[in-house]
């Protein structure tokens, strides 16, 4: 099976005053198409920065990210936006819905951006909102929804463009345990149904355990890379 995401010698440094901080330090890994992978680590270990780099939201100081055989490095901001629109879905810890759009309008955005016909897009968005159990909340604004409901809208939005890869950043971090479990199941079920590759950043080991693979990050480096059916690989 081929790698949908390949990370080679990836480094990201930040300037903090006169100091140079290396948040991601020479990381290498590949993620196979259709698998699920959790990136875990303590706070400040660099996992969210790594996710941002993998999704093309940020540019590395050195190294490269290859997403669906496209090297993101030479691409402009807009070209990378186009790659995300075609192949990537996102779920964030803070939901990140557009507050001025209703639930259904939020879900429709990725396909509308492609210029697809509104009628079909609306139908697809309705279907997805039904799948996440929000058929009766389509015209509500984010402020009129609970945290769990907002995250369900975000999940529907993440899947509307049939992404090849879904990046989720602490998707249950802002939710209570019960709602968190519901959201986890929703993500994994939809992921399975649509055969999407899932890259999940979390510090919740129970959640990580549901993935095929766990990459542990510590101080910006890969501390361990565990494939569920194979012995642990220490880098």
């Amino acid at each position, binding site marked *: 099976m081929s790698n949908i995401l390949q990370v080679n010698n990836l480094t990201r440094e930040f300037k903090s005053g006169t100091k140079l901080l290396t948040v991601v330090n020479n990381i290498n890994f590949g993620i196979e198409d259709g698998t699920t992978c959790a990136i875990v680590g303590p706070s400040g270990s660099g996992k969210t920065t790594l996710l941002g780099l993998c999704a093309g*939201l940020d540019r590395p100081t050195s190294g490269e990210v290859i997403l669906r055989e496209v090297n993101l490095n030479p691409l402009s901001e*807009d070209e990378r*936006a186009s790659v995300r*629109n075609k192949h990537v879905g*996102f779920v*964030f810890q803070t939901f*990140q819905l557009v507050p001025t759009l209703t639930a259904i309008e939020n879900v429709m955005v990725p396909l509308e951006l*492609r210029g697809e016909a509104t009628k079909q897009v609306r139908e697809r968005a309705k279907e997805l909102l039904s799948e996440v159990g929000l058929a009766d909340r389509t015209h509500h604004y984010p402020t009129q929804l609970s945290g769990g409901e907002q995250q369900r809208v975000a999940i529907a939005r993440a899947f509307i463009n049939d992404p090849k890869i879904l990046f989720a950043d602490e998707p249950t971090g802002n939710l209570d345990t019960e709602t968190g479990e519901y959201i986890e199941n929703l993500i994994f079920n939809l992921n399975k149904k649509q055969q999407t590759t899932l890259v999940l950043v979390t510090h919740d080991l129970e959640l990580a355990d549901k993935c095929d693979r766990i990459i542990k990050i510590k101080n910006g480096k890969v501390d361990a890379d565990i494939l569920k059916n194979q012995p642990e690989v220490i880098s």
Partner: protein
Amino acid sequence: MSWSWVLKMAWRDSRSNRRKLFLYMAAIIVGVAAQVAITSFRVNLNSSINDQAKELLGADLEVERNAEFQPELQAYLDSVSAEHSKMLSFTSMALFPETGTTRLSQISAMDGGFPYYGSIETEPTTAVDTYLEEYGALVDKTILNQLELVPGDSIKVGLITYKISGAIIEVPGQSMASTFFGPRVIIPLDGVENTGLLERGSRLEHKTYLKYPAGTDPKVVEERLDKMNDILDFRFDDVAERQEEVGEAISQLSNFLNLIGFIALLLGGIGVASSIFVYVRQKISTVAVLRCVGASSNQTMAIYLIQASSMGFVGAFIGALLGTLIQLYLPILVQDFIPVDIELFISWGSVFTGVLTGVAISIIFALFPLIAVRKISPLFTLRSAEVNLSKLLSIPTRVILYGVIGISITGYAWFMLNDLVAALFFTLGFAVCLLLLAGFAVLVMKASRKFMPTGWSYEWRQGLANLYRPNNQTSTLLLTFGLGVTLISSLYLTQDMLLGTINFEGEDQLPNLALFDIQYDQNSGVNDIIEENGLQVMQNVPIVTMRLQSVKNIPLEEVLADTSRNARRWALTREYRSTYRDSLVDTETLESGEFIASVTDMSSPVPISVSSDLMEDLDIALGDSIVWDVQGIPIESYVASTRTINWQTPQPNFFVVFPAGVLEPAPQFFATTVRTSSPEASLAVQQQIVQTYPNVSAIDVGQVISTIREFLDKVTFVIQFIGLFSIVTGLIVLAGSAATSRFQRIREAVLLRTLGAKQNQVIKIQVIEYVILGIMAALIGLILSLGASALLGYFYFDIKFIPNFAILGTEVVILVILVVTIGLLNTRGVHTKPPLEILRAEGL
């Protein structure tokens, strides 16, 4: 790029923000309304002037001379047209016997032909014809109303008492403003000499009005008259020239008003810029999400560009409608200054330009934050979205943006003023003003941070800290309100400065009644009347009329014919009214040479003293010789001294002073100044003098001042009316800026309430913040206006500027109250409702 998505997104995203957007729009509405009202009105005026060009003069040609026309001039005019009429104009006291009132009036004696175009409007309408038949007089309606007189009452001009046949409403080509300095009185030309005023020192203007026969080429007449004018001294005006003069005056007035209106629009622009800035800042996470799911930088920018320009368009459209309505009011405002009847119509060109300008201003001023939108990274979805928008732009980008704004402002000012240099100065002045205001804002923020008094109460420290904390309103408020204050305050201070120069009413040492044209044989009689009334003669000055015969030994005709001369024509051809005395008076200072008190030797040239202004206008130097024609007798003189004169006093002052011992035997008349104790005493002595000596003119200083004040009040009201747009825009921008920070303020207030702050503590913090902001805005605005007024006084009016602190104090109090009121209105409801309810309602 998917434009349909961008449009849809712009629409959807604006839905919950329209209330906020309305305030941004309001700033544009007011600015555009001012522009459209003024430019439409200008178009209306110009069209009215073109339509009524001939009525402006009442004839095809007006020829004027302050003596009888020479036979050759008269012969030529007769040859041009048989249709002409004569008029004799002079100022004289008029007595209204029914009330016993006297008034210095502008008398016109007419023969009935004039006007050939338009008509003299009277009340009753037939009076314009009957006054000639019944040998009556037409008198200005305003003075009749003032004195509660009606047609049928009488007016005494000189020795003749006329029946008032009717009231003058309008004379072609004359504006109401022309009556400010004395009411108009029209009497028949026939028999005017019986008034006894023609020979006795009155200044007579002889006028002839011509109606050209068909086929006359005005240019040919003009050329011929130009040639004759080189030798014969007269003035003439034809329709084209009068039209041009009036047009020019009006275009200057409207340019000035336009600029004031444009400032309102620019204030609106600044409001737009600051509002869009805050608006976009609240949209950073939305933009980051959109970028994350695949929107391009152009698409995200286009969303807000569409919102800004739509807002600009709607605002400009409403503004244009409002401006068209205000235009209906403007004629009432300026009617007194305009010599034509203004025909009102909608000027579509002005409406279109106004809308276009409104949209352009909203886009240009919104460019800064809009371009920053392009730079918002999708990474902000993962990281905090607290980011400084302006720092997202590179320095070259910022320079280009400022350049675009500067060029646009200059371009528009150029378009309006038709003068590139003036436009550049306008932009430069505006930029300097903004820089000073912005610099002051930075200073206030830094100072409040650095000198934060740690020992003060929590409310004070919190209120002060609000000045520099993130999302503060310091810059926006100081910039917009400061600029509005600068503008309005400059207008007030300049008006006060101008009034101050003539306000010598209260000064005990200065005369307040001046009597002119007292004949030699009347002088002692007038002085007796003054003394009988228990008043004291302050000055009794002899006046001798004379003209120049030669300057620097060159005959006047040669000097006039020399086209390369530096001397001014008016100075060479005027009739001089000179005096003689043996000393300088209070209003004069010796500048150079020696003031010779008296002479006994009549055979050598007379040493005279000349005012320094006249030295320049006659292009002469100390020691130069001048020969005077004193009513037929040549008198040789030389310039022995020069004097500077304070003209701004009610005493008679003279260009030329002769020493004692020369002019005593010459025909002369007198001017006398008196200090009266009350307006009633002044009126009593005037009445007695005019009844005994009708040719004597009296200038009541108190009345002159009130007339000038009335005139200035009318002028400044027009300016203030337009300036009001700036204040209104300033207030809207202030309200807008307060509204955009409502989000932040409410969150803080709720947080404080949740943590146990009492209602009055939260209010106190906000009052402290707004009071400081109000005082600072008023202070900087006033400082700038003081500077502007002082510069205006120094460079333009040549007056030393002494600020009126009463005006400044009142302004500060009003401004602070306004700022605090608007600030508190902004957080209304926060203090009384439970914290959770507010959080839900505000969607926080």
